[in-house]
């Protein structure tokens, strides 16, 4: 039992997906309990797994008992151990949230929705566990296919957004697959650790084939994570998706892809290849700077709340890519910590936005006046997430910025530091614009009495199933911030296993 945790983490949602699709059509009341149950099992075992990993450093699970390099293996180190817990937690919170939202937004499609939802989670969990480059491709596609379908469950614009996502997503995945092909040509292996060993032993760093493989993989991954300027598919897809779907897509898909990038750079190619041999670090960091600024500025131009949040994801991807490519430990730790904290921040924001939209039916920021009175707790959650995005202590956003800026200064890249600060300021403007609208009443209604405001519109707090996850997430933001040391220790453990990070002159 104990050594089967990696399998349980993955298989619980997978079997639940099958069960939901079978039983759900017969009686749709089964969908939700099954989903929640499987995610709870997954969460429990991922926490247990993280405990094991924190002790032993690495857990390797061989599928079917085939040893490396023949079989497919799941490798769990502190890095993806943490990520598994994050994915399970977020999936569980969103599934609780979905009780009401899914019934409103995708009526009569309960079994389909939950089947896709669980498969998406399976795909994401698999992406973060697998130690096999081709298996990763398959799991990326599992996650992508389900997200295309989830997005297309809403009508009109969402469908078109989903179609564009299919096209872009397929291009990205195909580039990745090509890269893996080139890598296989030279190394004859698909196992990540094995590829690294072959690369080192055979001195393949100078090979142009490996260079092409690396470029292809990076481009593929960048498309999938919406790294500016390859972000075109993201804003529409996430803002028009059903709110429950976007609550799990927005926090997780880009972050897990960032994890994939980290895994590729550090476990497969190795920092000595990426940073020392290629020395592209500066170029990519500048691209990240552009991404941060462009994402923030584009967000500034939005009037639709969810769209604004979607563009912020583009900016946040820039934070993480930049942090990873700064090529020093502090920044890398910061980037990984930001993967975790940003996942929760984005979740919190999308949960709040979803709750607001479900209750008021308003999408535009300017229509949100008086929300503090109507739904104070929802806004408390929103404000905490906003503070985290701006980077106010003791929320986790502050600490991820702290590490990232620290890393930026260490690397002497002042452009990156400046970009982070400017984007924090833009975030402050963005969120206080929303908060201000929500805090003040509409100027035309000049009645001062509380009763008339809340009584006339009939909008109150969302149901507990929506509010609960939101507030739990908000508390998580504070906890992740306050206990950042513990998380960072785990991350450092993972980072140190990548070997020394090279510095670029």
């Amino acid at each position, binding site marked *: 039992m104990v050594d089967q945790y990696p399998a349980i983490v993955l298989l619980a949602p997978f079997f639940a997906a099958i069960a939901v699709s079978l039983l759900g059509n017969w009686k749709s009341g089964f969908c939700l309990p099954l989903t929640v149950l499987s995610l709870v099992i997954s969460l429990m075992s991922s926490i247990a797994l993280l405990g094991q990993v924190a002790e032993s450093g690495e857990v390797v699970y061989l599928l079917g008992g085939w040893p490396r390099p*023949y079989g497919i293996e799941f490798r769990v180190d502190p890095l993806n151990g943490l990520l598994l817990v994050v994915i399970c937690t977020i999936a569980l919170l969103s599934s609780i949230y979905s009780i009401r939202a899914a019934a409103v937004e995708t009526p009569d499609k309960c079994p389909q929705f939950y089947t896709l939802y669980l498969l998406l989670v399976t795909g994401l969990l698999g992406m973060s566990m697998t130690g096999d480059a081709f298996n990763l491709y398959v799991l990326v596609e599992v996650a992508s296919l389900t997200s*295309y*379908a989830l997005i297309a469950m809403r009508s009109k614009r969402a469908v078109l957004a989903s179609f564009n996502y*299919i*096209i872009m997503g397929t*291009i990205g995945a195909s580039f990745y*697959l090509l890269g893996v092909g080139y890598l*296989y040509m030279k190394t004859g292996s698909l196992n990540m650790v094995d590829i690294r060993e072959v690369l080192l032993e055979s001195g393949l760093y100078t090979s142009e084939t490996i260079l092409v493989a690396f470029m292809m993989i990076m481009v593929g991954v960048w498309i999938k994570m919406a790294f500016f300027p390859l972000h075109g598919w993201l804003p529409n897809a996430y803002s028009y998706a059903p709110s429950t779907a976007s609550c799990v897509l927005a926090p997780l898909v880009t972050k897990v892809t960032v994890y994939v990038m980290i895994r590729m750079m550090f476990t497969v190619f190795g920092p000595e290849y990426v940073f020392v041999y290629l020395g592209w670090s500066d170029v990519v960091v500048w691209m990240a700077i552009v991404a941060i600024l462009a994402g923030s500025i584009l967000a500034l131009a939005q009037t639709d709340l969810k769209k604004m949040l979607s563009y912020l994801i583009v900016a946040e991807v820039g934070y993480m890519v930049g942090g990873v490519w700064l090529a020093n430990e502090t920044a890398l730790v910061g980037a990984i910590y930001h993967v975790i904290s940003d996942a929760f921040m984005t979740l919190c924001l999308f949960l709040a936005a979803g709750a607001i939209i479900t209750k008021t039916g308003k999408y535009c920021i300017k229509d949100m006046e008086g929300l503090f009175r109507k739904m104070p707790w929802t806004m408390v959650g929103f404000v905490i997430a906003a503070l985290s995005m701006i980077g106010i202590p003791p929320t986790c956003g502050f600490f991820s910025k702290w590490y990232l800026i620290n890393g930026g200064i260490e690397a002497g890249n002042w452009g990156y530091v400046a970009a982070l600060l400017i984007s924090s300021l833009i975030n402050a403007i963005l969120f206080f614009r929303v908060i201000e609208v929500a805090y003040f009443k509409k100027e035309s209604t000049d009645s001062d009495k509380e009763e008339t405001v809340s009584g006339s519109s009939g909008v109150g707090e969302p149901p507990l199933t929506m509010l609960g996850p939101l507030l739990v997430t908000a508390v998580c933001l504070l906890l992740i911030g306050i206990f950042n040391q513990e998380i960072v220790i785990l991350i450092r453990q993972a980072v140190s296993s990548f070997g020394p990070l090279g510095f670029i002159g």
Partner: protein
Amino acid sequence: MILVDFIVSRFNYWIYIILMMMGLFAMIAKKNLIKKLIGMSIFQTAIILFFVSIGVKEGSTIPILAHEAAHDPAHQQAAPLTEKGEGHIQNGKGRDALRAEDYANPLPHVLMLTAIVVGVATLGVGLAVVQKLHQEFGSIEEPEILAKIDSDDG
């Protein structure tokens, strides 16, 4: 002549690159959504072609062990799956017993079975989405759909 050699000796790459570019062009430039999906299929097929071609070796045969060879104790050593740690394309110990270069590399082909499945699934989702678009907008031309969305807004 050198250039011709260069092109001819790598013809499999050229073909896949040409196919891939055709697919990419269709995916990006075509306005008709079905044509975009066709482009996507071509794109994926190009990659499958690439993978299949890297598994091929000149003068090699299908990678199926003959019955007696598989049961010969001398050959068992060479069967890659029973051995730990050194199972790369060319296996040093078993070379005399079972010449790996006589067989085409089966792994890329096996991978492509999975990739084809993924491709079909993607295409299926894509077609379903296009169908839904057609139901909602009555068109599969991108400009017309965009115009409808704009008029909905206005």
